[in-house]
């Protein structure tokens, strides 16, 4: 924040404002937090109080048992992302925040789809599952449950394809993500 790289200017007119703008893309925030009670409540409370919407949220341990990782996706077209991250940084238990560019990160989510499937469409759904490199995890007389892993586009693609069969329910974990390349997320 200290050095946003503003140009060296002499004319006031040439100064450009920084921050405060909406940045339309989807943002994946990877947040390292101290593994303390109530951390998630603080973050959720902050979002609720300031009116930010969380699209997806995934929380889990890291390789360090003192530290947990929260991965959340939010819509940058709705909220000024720099305000969101700056407010998050004010929480004492928040250690690090990475705003991952979807194009520069590997993102994965797991989804379970329970689909209406009697005998004569079952094969069709199994074929779709294979194309999506998913797995059938449960088959009953009139339904089939499929596990799909991928980024949100893949999962939403599969959802569109099976919806016409009758989607009984869909359960998604929320995305987790990691920075591409050698750099730590």
């Amino acid at each position, binding site marked *: *924040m*200290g*050095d*946003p790289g*503003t140009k*060296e*200017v*002499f*004319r*006031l007119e040439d*100064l*450009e*404002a*920084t*921050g*405060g*703008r909406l940045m339309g893309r989807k943002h994946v925030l990877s947040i390292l*937090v*101290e593994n303390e*009670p*109530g951390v998630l*409540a*603080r973050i959720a*409370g*902050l979002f609720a*109080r300031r009116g930010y919407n969380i699209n997806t949220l995934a929380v889990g341990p890291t390789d360090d048992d003192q530290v947990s990782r929260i991965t959340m996706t939010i819509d940058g077209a709705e909220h000024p992302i*720099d*305000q969101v991250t*700056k*407010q998050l*940084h*004010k*929480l*004492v*238990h*928040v*250690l690090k925040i990475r705003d991952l560019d979807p194009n520069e990160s590997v993102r994965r989510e797991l989804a379970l789809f329970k689909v209406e499937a009697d005998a004569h469409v079952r094969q069709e759904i199994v074929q779709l599952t294979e194309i999506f490199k998913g797995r059938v995890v449960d088959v009953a007389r009139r339904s089939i449950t499929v596990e799909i892993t991928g980024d949100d586009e893949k999962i939403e693609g599969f959802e569109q394809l099976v919806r016409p069969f009758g989607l009984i329910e869909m359960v998604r974990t929320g995305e987790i993500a990691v920075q591409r390349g050698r750099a730590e997320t």
Partner: protein
Amino acid sequence: MRAVEAIMQCLKAEEVDVIFGLPGGANLPTYDAIYDSGIRHILVRHEAGGGHAAEGYAKATGKVGVSLATSGPGATNLVTPIADAMMDSVPTVFITGQVRTDLLGTDGFQEADITGITMPIVKHSVMIRDPRDIPSAIHEAFHVASTGRPGPVLVDVPQDLSRADIDYEPITSVDLPGYQPTTSGNAKQIRLAARALANAKRPVLYVGGGVVNSNASEQLRELALSDKFPVTATLMGLGAFPAPHEQWLGMLGMHGTRAANYAMDEADLIVAIGARFDDRITGKLDEFAPHAKFIHIDIDPAEISKNVPAHIPIVGDAKDILGKLSTEYKALNAEPARMNEWWSKITGWREQYPLGYEDSADSEIKPQFMIQEMLRVTEGQAIVSSDVGQHQMWTAQYYDFPEPRRWINSGGAGTMGFGLPAAMGAQVGCPDDLVVCLAGDGSLQMNIHELATCADNDIPVKIFLMNNGFLGMVRQWQELFWDRRYSAVDTGKHPDWVKLADAYGATGMQVTDKTQLGDAFKEAIETEGPVLVDVRVTPEENTYPMIPAGQAARDMVG
């Protein structure tokens, strides 16, 4: 030793010399440790009074204010002071008792989830889960409360854990990897800011409470006087620049001066220092300072570009940044004459629109006159604590504060009832100073019980009560914007303030004639112990000038 004794050791290590609090079941062990700790404890009559007293102490001294309460209702009574301390960035530590750990979550007697309740209004909070963590938690609380952008920190201590026996080793440093405030301003940005200032023809320094918190008044003055920069301040920033002064435009914002607001409206460069572009300052955001570029100096990065996008953001401690900015600016040898036109404009506004009111033709006391008399009698040397409302705005307008930490009030939260307990805290922190509580009759009763605390502890606060018989600011809005339909704003004839003061062990006086007001103030100041002067003022006087809510500076009325 017992964990509570470790708490006392930690408080002493943090140089706490006074605690404001009230005991109960869950913090009995703590009070047992206070008994022979050597730390002065002031028993308040309501936890909110203790919380605001801690704030007043902190605002007047710059040190961390400490307040104690028991669990449940004791703790929830601290909610308003905590919220207030958050809004105004007051360094405070609140230590609450909590029910025993085996009762947690069972709706036990006097159980309240105070860390949950206060989560959105604390800078940080912690509930102790292991008694061995208590010493580090206390030191971390003081560290977080007093560094970076100051604020309230809550430490909730379950009763059984506070009785536990722990090994106590003095702690000399805190380790909070997630809390690393930036204090030193970026050199490149400071240089850029200096150049922007040197190129500005219509600059304004817009100063907030951050300058007071950072003890940066001297550096502000140096920058302002390094050329002829006009200075205005928010309600929280009053005193950061000495008033009166030829470069001082008065307060800005909703009830600020026209000179200050018009200067903001026409400025080409605004330097915001420890101020946060609150809606009471900006009015209609879209029309706020339409010609200006903004340099924004703040220790809290989240304030920068929150409401108004900054052109030159500088994160860090105002004291550090202002010092460097002055040096950089002086090196540029800017041409002072570039501001001549700007100053002739400002001088024009000052002459055309001075603060003013029509004094009564008879003996009636106008509220503005009351503040002027207070200024005259105290020679501007009092620490003034106020409540919230018209009287607060008139004090901000008419009392010239020559230095910081002499104006103690509730700005962001606008907490009625703040004045008396805060004055009490300020007086305890500054025993040799004259502390005046300039109260409103609506606000004063909200924490009037602390008058007993003042009387019992020889805290000689002088309460100058501006009594207009109304919730005055609400009445003003009803008059101006709600067709004079006075709904629930008449505070009636009670109490009899003189008798009430007497009942609390203070001295009560009443003044109804303006010719006697100054002498009454003098007498109050010369009287030992707490004094309450009930000053009957014009009931329906409006606070002007005013920017109606949501409008722009140039729409000022009155």
